[in-house]
């Protein structure tokens, strides 16, 4: 008899909790957020010339599709093969397919002692050095590459790079865009965010904001 009562109460309980916790609560939070923080609640869209170019919080790939014989080359998954666009600051390595895929995020899950990790790191370092070597005043080696430029991000869509990484890339950007280096470094400083509460986390350079500012200063 008591069991029957427990069953009835349980079913009624699940239904009413679904209503309260699963429907009402998210609706109330959505309502308040959409009124109080509409930009945040919707994902901090960035528009340029009326077109949606991305979200301030989401890293994107600043690369160009490879074109051969007037056709975009596709990889085995049907995604365009791309090369980094040297006119833009580059985001961190990403493990998603394709790179910086914000609809299917994933970790690299590369272990600390794996040969696969070593190979991935070597490839990332080589790509970074190749992209920046010609413009960097000193000798750019693996030991000079900041870890965030070699290590894959967690989300695969990390919107930020470190200040050290940005300053190395600044030489390339200044040379290609014919801008004075101090001007580029000033832009980097403008788009560098500090630590939370002054101590939580690390300073960040938002790559999308920085690249859009570059386009405004020196055109595409």
């Amino acid at each position: 008899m008591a069991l029957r009562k427990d069953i009835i109460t349980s079913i009624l309980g699940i239904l009413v909790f679904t209503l309260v916790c699963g429907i009402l609560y998210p609706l109330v939070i959505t309502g308040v957020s959409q009124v109080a923080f509409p930009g945040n609640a919707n994902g901090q869209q960035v528009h340029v010339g009326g077109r949606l170019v991305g979200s301030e919080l989401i890293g994107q790939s600043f690369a160009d599709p490879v074109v051969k014989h007037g056709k975009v080359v596709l990889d085995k998954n049907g995604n365009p093969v791309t090369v980094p666009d040297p006119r833009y600051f580059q985001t961190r390595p990403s493990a998603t397919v394709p790179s910086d895929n914000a609809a299917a995020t994933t970790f690299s899950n590369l272990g600390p002692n794996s040969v696969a990790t070593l190979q991935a790191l070597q490839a990332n370092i080589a790509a970074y050095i190749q992209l920046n070597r010609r413009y960097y005043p000193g000798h750019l080696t693996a030991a000079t590459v900041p870890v965030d430029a070699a290590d894959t991000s967690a989300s695969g869509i990390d919107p930020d790079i470190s200040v050290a990484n940005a300053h190395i890339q600044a030489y390339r950007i200044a040379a290609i865009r014919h801008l004075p280096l101090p001007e580029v470094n000033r832009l980097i400083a403008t788009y560098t965010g500090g630590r939370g509460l002054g101590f939580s986390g690390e300073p960040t350079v938002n790559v999308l904001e920085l690249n859009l500012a570059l386009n405004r200063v020196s055109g595409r």
Partner: protein
Amino acid sequence: MTFTGWLTIVAFVVILTALAMPLGSYMAAVYGGEHTVMDRIVGVPERFLYRVMRVDPGHEQDWKAYAKSMIVFSLAGWLVLYLILRTQGLWSFTGLNPQGFHSAPWNVTFNTTSSFLTNTNWQYYGGETTLSYFSQMAGLTVQNFLSAGVGIVVAVALIRGIISRSGKSLGNFWHDIVRTVLYVLMPLSIVVALVLVSQGVLQTFGAYWTAHGVTGLTQSIARAPVASQEAIKLLGTNGGGIFNVNSAHPFENPTGFSNFVEMLAVLVIPAALVFMYGKLVGNRRQGYAIFSTMMIMFLGAVIVAYIAEAHGSPAQHAAGLHTSVIAGSTGGNLEGKEQRFGIAGSALFDVITTVTSCGAVNSAIESFTGIGGAVPFANLSASEVIFGGVGTGLYSILLYVLLAVFIGGLMVGRTPEYLGKKIEAREIKLVALGILITPLAALFSTALATASSAGRASISAAATGPQGFAETFYAYLSQANNNGSAFAGYGGFVQPAAGNLGSHGITFADLLGGFTMLFARYAPILFALAVAGSLAGKRIGPAGLGTMRTDNGTFVVLLIGVIILVGALTFFPALLLGPIVQGLTGHLY
């Protein structure tokens, strides 16, 4: 390592303690039947819920009736959640399935349902490619509240058993679960959700975007009502991310400040419960002793993890990377970590999420260094008693307290007693079973999965050598402890494209994991409630000269010793084969 890194850790501990103490007092009032500030606001909905559920909140239940209500309620929740997830496509009329996702297959859904019922939130699936907004809200968010609630009420029932002066009553399950949701979880969730939105966490029912990037590449951007689920996912130590990369996703955790808030949200209720315990048993020092035990072990774990991650990994050193701090760069092992959190913010989050049964992650645990990755292993091996999950941590450590009292009693040669109640053979048998169930489930499932080819099919291709064993061991250790964090390469779901068409589960991993979670959740709960029932009937004797004190430093040391001894004896051989061997060598596999 940096000054700001250490400062983050110190500030976290100070602020956590400052928040947990008043919350503990408040919760003592909620469960002690006293008036609280929330009575006016939620008194009416509370009585409405009792009426709808046809419950007499004053009806007293002994441990068997209490356990029966809890089991039936959980079973009903399991069935409803399974149905919601399996009929995902049918709910498109609500407008909360903008991407038109189909249901995931039965085996993965079995695992997911068991996972959210048991407060584990182990996820073989990626949220943004598998679940509709409706499934996330009406399905998962609801169990995020209820599974957390069940954990808390079991702890409360055990406390009532310890302090009861007469009779067998442990209170009323329905009364406790309703009050837990309305007085504790819901108000805190609303506050945390809004703070997170103010930092940039999403809260929208809108469809995914297609953006036309700066260089002309298109980018599809998944969205969701994130903040409402994020808040309870952390506060209830649930841990199941709305997106695949969990709290590493910028839409779940956008800033260094939000990261700090999220870390506090995970630990505040488990820490507050310990202070609540001291208040309810009428001796705050009992609570302080348990808090000190937890905090000492917690700090040990944080310090080791931070130093190990700041040192960098063997693969980085082999590649010639410079892993010390330089101007403008964190250095360290940033593989699988986000720039905005850095090394300290990732290592601290990682320890917090694995000492509790949370399992939310802001970095890839599989990519932690050998020693850094051994820390979550060790935390899980300590059976989630270092703060632990909401409620589960408290009732689990109370079992260890009873064990320590028993061992202490043997050493001084007196009948062991705790808070005036004699601890006898029946209680110690129940305590021993309650403590050993989880490690046994973890080791048994790991052995099964390692020894069979069906189990080895889940190991990721890149996990060679000890990493493959570490992945497997972590998977079942995490599921047995109802944690839910993962060496995420370990797979149970193959999904060729978003939306589940053509996807299939790996039945062996899905079912073994699902049953491991269910068994290791409900068996210890039943033993804890049985201990409560057994203690509830006992007379409270006066403390004598020879009574061993349980509120001083000596007892804290004894308790830490017992926890480490049990954990080390059970898990050390298995730990040696995985993370420790990787931490001791620079060899690459």
